[in-house]
């Protein structure tokens, strides 16, 4: 019998499985996405669009919406792993914990990026936003999403088996992601040409966050899977 295929192939396997699950169950498209669009609409009600506040606040509102949607996506993604003894089965499978972690992160990143793509269209239509600096916008979205998924997978897995996971996950995760929110929002303001300053330092900062969280998560997922 061959030994385990290594971290990368385990990650690939888990990521493909997660995307397949999303294709079968369609929770992201059917529930999280409508929720995210609803939040955008509610922001528009709350902040009177006539006075231009909405326009000024668009990047922040966008990323807050992404964060809320990410919490829902994470909850769903790890609730699946906590049901039917799946966590035990994953431990028994002999897959490397870092591989499982990176696989979950990959799938989450792809799902969230797709959600963001739709949301960007929503923002463009609903808030009448003009997009400039597309490469920067794309880099920021990718790196911020990696950071959100990287930190989120750690806490999502940690909260999955707790009875109070619905309240605990946002409490743990959102303060952790405050810097990502700040950097992504400021970076987007730049790419929407609201600011004269170049936005690439913000993208670099987001890259550092993502790297830190992904490294931590790869190491912490073993004790997390074993004992938490």
């Amino acid at each position, binding site marked *: 019998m061959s030994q385990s295929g290594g971290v990368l192939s385990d990650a690939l396997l888990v990521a493909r499985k997660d995307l397949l699950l999303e294709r079968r169950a369609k929770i992201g498209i059917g529930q999280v996405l409508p929720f995210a669009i609803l939040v955008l609409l509610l922001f528009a009600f709350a902040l009177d669009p006539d006075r231009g506040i909405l326009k000024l606040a668009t990047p922040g509102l966008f990323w807050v919406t992404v964060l809320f949607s990410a919490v829902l996506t994470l909850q769903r993604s790890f609730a699946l792993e906590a049901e039917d003894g799946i966590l035990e089965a994953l431990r028994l499978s002999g897959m490397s914990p870092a591989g499982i972690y990176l696989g979950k992160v990959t799938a989450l990143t792809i799902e969230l990026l797709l959600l963001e793509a739709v949301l960007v269209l929503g923002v463009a239509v609903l808030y009448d936003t003009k997009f400039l600096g597309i490469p920067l916008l794309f880099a920021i979205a990718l790196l911020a999403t990696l950071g959100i998924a990287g930190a989120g997978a750690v806490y999502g897995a940690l909260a999955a088996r707790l009875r109070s996971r619905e309240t*605990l996950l946002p409490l743990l995760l959102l*303060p*952790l992601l405050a810097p990502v929110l*700040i950097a992504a929002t*400021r970076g987007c303001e730049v790419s929407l040409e609201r600011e004269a300053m170049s936005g690439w330092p913000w993208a670099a900062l987001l890259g550092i966050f993502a790297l*830190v969280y992904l490294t931590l998560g790869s190491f912490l997922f073993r004790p997390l899977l074993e*004992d938490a």
Partner: protein
Amino acid sequence: MTTTKIQSASTVSPAPTGTGSRGTKVLGGFALVFLIIAVVYGLFISPPDAQLGNTIRIIYMHVPTVMAAYLAFIITAVSSGMYLWKRTEFWDLLGSSGAEIGVLFFAVTIVDGALWGKVTWGVFWRWEPRLTTSAVLLIMYIGYLAVRAIPADPRTRATRCAIIGIVAIVNVPIVHKAVDWWRGLHQGKTVLGTIDPEMGGTQLFAMYSALIAGLLVCVWLLIHRFRAGFLAERASDLGLDQALEERRLESSPATGEDA
């Protein structure tokens, strides 16, 4: 050699009736001395600051509490790492004690900061980077305590907490940097949270004695909290031997199970 041995044995032999010990009493005594010095110099003897005026007297409380909080959080982080490596109750208890005391001091820091803001800016809260940083970090550690409070198998609970302890401390510099740059990279340095090098002699004396007092109190609290936590664990272990006995007894009448 032998006399010290006997002495230490005699001090240990009666079981403690609380979390205090000779060590904590000495430590507490030192803390008290520095606290008194801090009160006398900080509130009465030292003059108002040239720039800050009398509000420097709030800084005398603000800086020691934030330092104590950081000390406690660093202890939590180190203990969390050590727990994941050694898996001993010691590191788990030390880590959770640190988080609780850190939250206490951090909450006090924020209140002091808001009071300073009321005098200086006329409002309790301004969206000032350091205040916001502190609030976010405080909530992060409140999350730690929330997880800690969930009843669970001791090993499970300890692992969860250790993971949060590590992730949280790594996030402390990240949050600091991000918030510093939040309002653009050219935000002036805030006075709050730094010791002005141009302080006068009695001001420095008040500041340093308050700082030492704060750190001593923090360590003193940590020892007591650790011991209280240790006692709580023993108290919940109490039933364990009995439970083992009862568990074994379950089998004796039920040898002839049929179904």
